[in-house]
């Protein structure tokens, strides 16, 4: 399935459009999506620090999704690097 991933913070620098699309198997977990994103960034955005994706969370509009969660059927997610508000 195609997964649309909205980018924030330092990860915005991966694509000027503010989002990327990745192909993952149906019923893929967040952990699998994390691996796929790391591979994609290593190839397409080598300036992004290795390890940033490991410290980032994946989320729907409503909640953080942990590694064992499956990718939502909507195929839409956000990837959230470490936060620094306030």
């Amino acid at each position, binding site marked *: 399935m195609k997964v649309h991933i909205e980018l*924030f913070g330092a990860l915005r620098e991966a694509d000027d459009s503010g989002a990327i699309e990745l192909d993952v198997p149906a019923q893929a977990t967040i952990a699998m999506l994390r691996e796929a994103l790391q591979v994609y960034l290593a190839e397409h955005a080598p300036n992004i620090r290795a390890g940033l994706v490991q410290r980032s969370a994946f*989320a729907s509009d409503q909640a*953080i999704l942990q590694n064992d969660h499956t990718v939502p059927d909507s195929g839409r997610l956000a990837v959230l690097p470490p936060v620094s508000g306030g």
Partner: protein
Amino acid sequence: MHDIHTAVTDIAEAALDPSAALDFVSDPRFGGITTFIGRVRVHNLGRSVTGVSYDLFRPLALRTFQTIGERAEAEVGGPLKLYIAHAQGRLAIGDLAVIVAAGTPHRDEAFRACRLAIEAVKHEAPIWKQEHYVDGDSAWSEGCSLCEEHRDAERAALQPGSQHGHGH
């Protein structure tokens, strides 16, 4: 629900408004009001800053503010009005980045609720700060991981007695 006000304000449309926060948390039942205002400062980690940009994941940020408010209500265990607003976009030195205000019958609950809320906003809300420097360079601030596995690892790495390992 109406005792918690949450907002993300696009700085291009309006500045954060402390008087609106005080109005919201004012109530005839309340003798104590506390306010925290976060402003953009001119230096960070030894570098001169000309401004900052805040990026937010708005729907989850608002939901997180609401959850934080409900946690503050549970912590206080009595009447509370809480206002949480954060700016989005490019801010100049001195501009307001965040306002938290709490109104309660007495000062102790007001201080506790305000402190709980601002710390949680900083550590849990999906918000990112990019600093712009006088030399034209920009950098995203180091932050707190929202990923559970990494939060656990960060906690385990902290020295005993230290509540938080970051300087923010």
